[in-house]
């Protein structure tokens, strides 16, 4: 079968993309104005000290040489020294990235499980009230800036109603689960630590909902339009004539086909999600990559900047690889097209 060829082909094609991405990010970080060595040492440092640091950081070498030095480091898990934390950027990212990953993943799960059924219901009842309601809801979601929606949720649900905590990643729980994956939900489950799991979940809900609003709308709209198109196909009429229940037609047959276009938008939305996660993390004091990344940009901490962008970019590539694989799962013809006979 074509499964393996298809996977290998798609997998290999992410490598040049990743290389291109790294060149781009690396170059951009070096050519933006600002002198990192001077900033790191402060205005009163001597020119000699600055020059020494530049040499130490390799900033005096030609750009291509710097790039290969950097890549050599990346391969060994060394992303360079951060000027702010004085630690290796890789160590910093290991600490902050899991929190961001947990948040964006849950937000995406919410977005898919709310957005897709919303789109299906709207598509089934095209131009009637469920469709209009869903469209209005989507419209609101898209137009709300995430930081504003986040503050609103904090005000109402956290402060007025007091149902959920407003900020942070976990409450006062002892003992905390041992860090194995860095994902609190997973770690606490692995340790059977129920209080930590509950607290982590409570803290996760509001920021995840905030983050999922815009993708929900995107996914619902995309699912709706592709569902409507697919709902008109001959085989749907055939199934209906054979007396197959409408629910089975909609969710087993039509959705499976129209989900391909939802997948496309899910892949794209994941990039968007990583972007707006920066804002949402700051609103909810979420200890993810956001504050680290923002600080890095403000301080011209180039290694940290490149590290953060590289991780975000790599996650985006990985998600889109997963999307490519899922295309094949949902529409087996994709595997066959991969076969070159």
């Amino acid at each position: 079968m074509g499964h393996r060829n298809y996977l290998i082909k798609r997998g290999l094609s992410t490598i040049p993309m990743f290389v291109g991405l790294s060149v781009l990010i690396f170059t951009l970080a070096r050519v933006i104005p600002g002198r990192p060595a001077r900033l790191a040492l402060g205005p009163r440092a001597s020119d000699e000290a600055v020059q020494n640091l530049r040499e130490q950081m390799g900033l005096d070498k030609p750009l291509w040489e710097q790039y290969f030095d950097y890549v050599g480091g990346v391969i060994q898990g060394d992303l360079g020294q951060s000027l702010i934390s004085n630690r290796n950027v890789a160590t910093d990212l290991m600490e902050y990235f899991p929190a961001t990953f947990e948040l964006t993943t849950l937000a995406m799960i919410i977005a898919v499980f709310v957005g897709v059924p919303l789109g299906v219901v709207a598509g089934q009842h095209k131009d009637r009230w469920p469709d209009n309601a869903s469209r209005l809801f989507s419209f609101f979601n898209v137009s709300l800036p995430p930081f504003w929606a986040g503050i609103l949720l904090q005000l109402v649900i956290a402060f007025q109603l007091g149902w959920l905590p407003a900020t942070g990643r976990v409450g006062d729980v002892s003992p905390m689960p041992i860090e194995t994956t860095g994902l609190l939900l997973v770690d606490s489950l692995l340790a059977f630590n129920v209080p930590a799991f509950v607290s982590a979940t409570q803290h996760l809900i509001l920021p995840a909902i905030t983050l999922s609003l815009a993708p929900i709308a995107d996914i619902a709209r995309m699912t709706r339009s592709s569902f409507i198109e697919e709902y008109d196909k001959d085989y749907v009429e055939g199934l209906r004539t054979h007396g197959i229940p409408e629910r089975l037609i909609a969710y087993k047959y039509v959705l499976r086909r129209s989900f391909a276009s939802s997948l496309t938008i899910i892949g794209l939305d994941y990039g968007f999600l990583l972007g707006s996660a920066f804002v949402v993390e700051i609103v909810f004091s979420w200890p993810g990559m956001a504050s680290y990344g923002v600080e890095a940009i403000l301080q011209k901490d180039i290694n940290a900047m490149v590290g953060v962008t590289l991780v975000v970019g790599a996650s985006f590539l990985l998600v889109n690889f997963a999307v490519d694989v899922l295309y094949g799962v949902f529409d087996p013809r994709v595997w066959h097209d991969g076969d070159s006979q």
Partner: protein
Amino acid sequence: MADPILSVDDLSVEFETYEGRHHVLDGVDLTVEEGETVALVGETGCGKSVTAKSIMGTLPRPPGEITSGSITYDGTGLLADADAHARVQGEEMSMIFQDPMTYLSPVYPVGSMMADVATYSGGEDVSWLGMLKNLLGRRANRGEIRERSIELLDRMRIPDPEGTLDRYPVELSGGMRQRVIVAMALINDPTFLIADEPTTALDVTVQDQILSLLRERVEERDLSMLYITHNLGVAREIADRICIMYAGEIVEVGTTEEIFDAPLHPYTRGLLDSIPKLTGFEGDGIDGQIPDYTDPPTGCRFHPRCPAAMAGTCDVEPVESHAVGDDRAVACHLYEDGMSFGEAATVAEEEAGGPTDEPVTAEAGGEP
């Protein structure tokens, strides 16, 4: 003869669209006796499929609307009672579709779709749990359904029926897919079958195979069938009786031999004349095209294209169906009720245009 198993009386269907109201079916009368195959023949757009959908209860409403008439199946009125219609349709009727390329879901193996048809055709609803089980392939009595599917595919002369069940439609040829579609229609042992141009999309040799498989099955199970086609040749091969339809009206009914031996209605004669023959390459055919349904011609709907149209009669007086001979019916002003078959045939030869036995030299028909 006993009551017909299916009778459609005076069925009128209209469609509401942007351009206005389309009067598509205008008083269609149709009967199918038990064990009989009736072919419904007419040009594309004449209302054949609308008739089929009305019988199957799948006419999209809106925009479609049944404005008058009744459909009776085995003594049960279908149009008055939607539940009875759904039940009769689920238990007794089944349908074979036109295009094997588009009537199978591309993302499931054909066996999965057949199993769904076998399981749910009775019309019962499915719970979310039931659907989950279905998606995970854990439906009830799946072994039995699989066996039934394999047996049917085998009857349809599909090589390797078991392997075929697990294949996707893209992996099958058009002929194989059409066999699967036929098998799917037969899986619940229907007593009444509607075939909507099932061989149109196939090439001629495959068409013949499908037709003979279908005929075999119909005879073996004593099925009643309404076979819809635009191809008189196919109708001749499969049907006991032929109904000719034009612009939403049945214009002529007769047994297959009679229709071919002595076509009465000018439209039927024109249709027969349009069949390409091995001798004499140019038929005369029929000029013009199916009328606009928003504003159909007054009087007889065929009169603007009719070589025998009589000014002052055909364009004014609505035409009624006249019984001719024993079991012919023709809706044309040339004929009168109670005419004997011989008289009618003479009228047809003299007046109705269309095929003649002598080679045509001058412009046929001419001015009436």
